[in-house]
């Protein structure tokens, strides 16, 4: 099978890979680049476990062909912390127990980081609707929503 050659930027690093035409960005992240932090919960765009940011936009990596990543900038959960320094959302999720099994957590963190970049002062309802595409089966969302609201308040205070 002939492969496509792609050059893209992932978490700030220029990255080259070969992929099959039908492979998704999620396939490549997970199976070729060892970036398994993005999860495949459904493969159909319904769970948000594969959420990544491409050129500033939140997308489901399972719905984007890997070939489309050419020349783009992709951010995944692996790029969210700065070395040892956790992003405030990551820190708050730990402190407020906003995860149980944790499999939805990477997608939810990536999605909420993108939300707070767009809207630093979201209402509870805005957070809930923004996350409506990110399924969590463990928590009932309560502690997740609280952690996001709390982080937003902290970040506004710090800014």
């Amino acid at each position, binding site marked *: 099978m002939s492969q496509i050659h792609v050059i893209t930027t992932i978490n700030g690093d220029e990255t080259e890979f070969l992929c099959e035409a039908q492979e998704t960005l999620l396939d490549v992240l997970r199976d070729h680049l060892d970036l398994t932090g993005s999860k495949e919960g459904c493969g159909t765009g319904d769970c948000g*476990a594969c959420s990544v940011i491409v050129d500033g936009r939140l997308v489901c990596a399972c719905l984007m062909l890997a070939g489309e990543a050419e020349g783009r900038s992709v951010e995944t959960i692996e790029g969210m912390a700065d070395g040892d320094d956790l992003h405030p959302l990551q820190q708050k999720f730990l402190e407020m127990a906003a995860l149980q099994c944790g499999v939805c957590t990477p997608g939810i963190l990536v999605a909420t980081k993108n939300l707070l970049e767009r809207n630093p002062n979201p209402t509870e309802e805005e957070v809930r609707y923004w996350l409506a595409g990110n399924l969590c089966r463990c928590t009932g969302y309560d502690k997740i929503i609280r952690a996001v609201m709390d982080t937003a308040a902290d970040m506004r205070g710090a800014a």
Partner: protein
Amino acid sequence: MPKDEYQSRDFRIVGTRPVRPDGIDKVTGKARYGADMTAPGMLWGAILRSPHAHARIKSIDTSAAEAMKGVKAVITRADFTYQPESASLADVLDNCMAGEKARYDGHAVAAVAATSKSIARAALKAIKVDYGVLPHVTDVDEAMKPDAPVIEAGRVQENVPEGYSENVTGRSQYGHGDPEAGFEKADLVIERHFTTAATHQGYIEPNACLAQLGADGQGEIWVCTQGHYMVRNTCAGVLGLDAGMLRVTASEIGGGFGGKTHVWMEPTALVLSRKAGKPVKLVLSRDEVFRATGPTASSSIDVKIGMKKDGSITGATATYRLQAGAYPGSIAFLSAMCGFAPYDLKHVRTEGYEVMTNRPKAAAYRAPGAPMAAYPVESVIDELCQKLDLDPLETRLKNAAREGTKASYGPTYPAIGLEATLKAAQSHPHWIAPLGENQGRGVACGFWFNFGGDTCVSLMVNPDGTVSLSEGNPDIGGSRASMSMMAAEELGVDLDQVRTVIADTASLGQNEVTDGSRVTFAVGLATIKAARHAIQIMKERAAMTWGIDPEAVDWRDGAAHPAGPNAGKFPPMTIKEIAAIASNTGGPIAGHHEVTAEGAGVSFATHMVDTETDPETGQVKVLRYTVFQDAGKAVHPDYVEGQFQGGAAQGIGWAINEEYIYGEDGRLQNPGFLDYRIPVASDLPMIEPVILEIPNPGHPYGVRGVGETSIVPPLAAIANAVSRSSNVRLTSLPMSPPKVLAAMKGT
């Protein structure tokens, strides 16, 4: 009192809310789940599944698939050369790979291993299966009729009465007294029929494993499961291997809720690996998860309850019919045990029927059998309260089971917390908050047994005095944190001195799966006892150093102390000091404990919910939700609350949205998260958790399991809220908009 029984004490660490030890890996994407592992030379597995609900497999032609470049193994049932002796293992085998018949839409019929995912998928398409389609049945009531298509003949147990199809394989009965006499004494008797749809556990991580099996019978599996010992034992039993030759490691697990207490495709991965001579990774798609792994049972239920004007229940009966899916053995007996468990009844009788259908084999789902057991009972009690103008909380308190009550399923309760949850509900501001138009408030109670079971823990005191704790239960919601906390509490050391890991099957003795809300209780119990064992050894080492009797040594604040003035005057020896000289005082120090834990301590909850029903569309919105549950002792309250909230959310989904929808053709019509809609963030309000602590007499710290009870009351609590707001009694789940609308319009 023996030392393992509950003793009141002040806690230093238990009851606090530290950051969990596995947290950083989970917020940075480093944590490795089932599908995240690879091995050198690894192949990709894929499974071909029946598109028919019921069909004879006449022949399978795999030659074209085998000839494809990159295909390294193709297997069918013929490659499973061992036939297990026990009927239940033979069922597991047949469910993993169909033999003579495909019994449900999604039943595995062949599998391949190839060098890439895309080749594996293409190879599935090249396999030709010749099916002889058979009549099918997917509805539980239909399946019971004498003329229903029979899934498998010859599986009926002796206790099943005449007059049913052979699909009815088992019947169970519980209760005491004379319900008919009880109904005579009632001022009002209500009898109703209820149905609930099958729902899926809906864990976000699809089942996945990486397996390797050599011709010598030695193998390894990396798998997301609630019990890697179960995976080992079942795979060994199904394939005729020695359990000791299989080493199974549990990955991080992305949710299970009972659905990962079974084996679905691990034997398939092993057989593929044996045939190909390479490790094989097998990851199910979401479609496969829905079609072929355990949903819970759908049910058809009759409940009859008699009540006096003062609210006392005079008699109660229930008949539970639960579909088991394609193999015998459903959870109807658990429903029959749980239905009336919260109440102190003189006259009560329940029965449960287990019914085979052309659906995937029903699996455990959080408090299996209990939600559908409580739903009709709590609904009828609510309707009796409405008609007799009684307060629903007061009425439940009047009938509530207490210490000394003989439960409807047999035993007599020790100290339990139902009354406490009801009283907490009565005094909560939620109970008296005003309601608006089209809004209703519902309450319901729920019960779950909680389990103990086989448990092994080892606690190593390292040369530097830090502590490594090994346990054998996958951590599904923060249990490593709880174990570290209990070990640190008992040893008297700081929490950061203890690290807990989940050991593989070769490192500890048998451990029951992470189920039955057993882990915090049973593994916690074993952890405390392993710590006490290590303390005993450390006291002996200190005694030896001081030249005094070990009985004259006390352990407190992480150090050995002379017990009193008579013991001699020695400065305390800390765990670090004792560990540092261990090689000179008898060797490395480790405590361990192996037990089949009993005394789990039953659990009760009361839920309160406000809903609003849209009179135009029939859509139900949950406005406010409060959970009152007895935790015995909350080791890490954050994660106890998380269990309360998560269970309530799943119950809300079951009540309002979720259902397996089968077409006339017997195929599942909604095998994806778009059409099988679990609650999303915008569907739910905050869920307020209220933790009650009525100590479990069977645990040193008073701990009870908390994981499951929270899914039991929501079905009825929401049905009661909706019924009250719409003035019509709803009796079928889910309460989807068309159903609610039809009920409101009386059609």
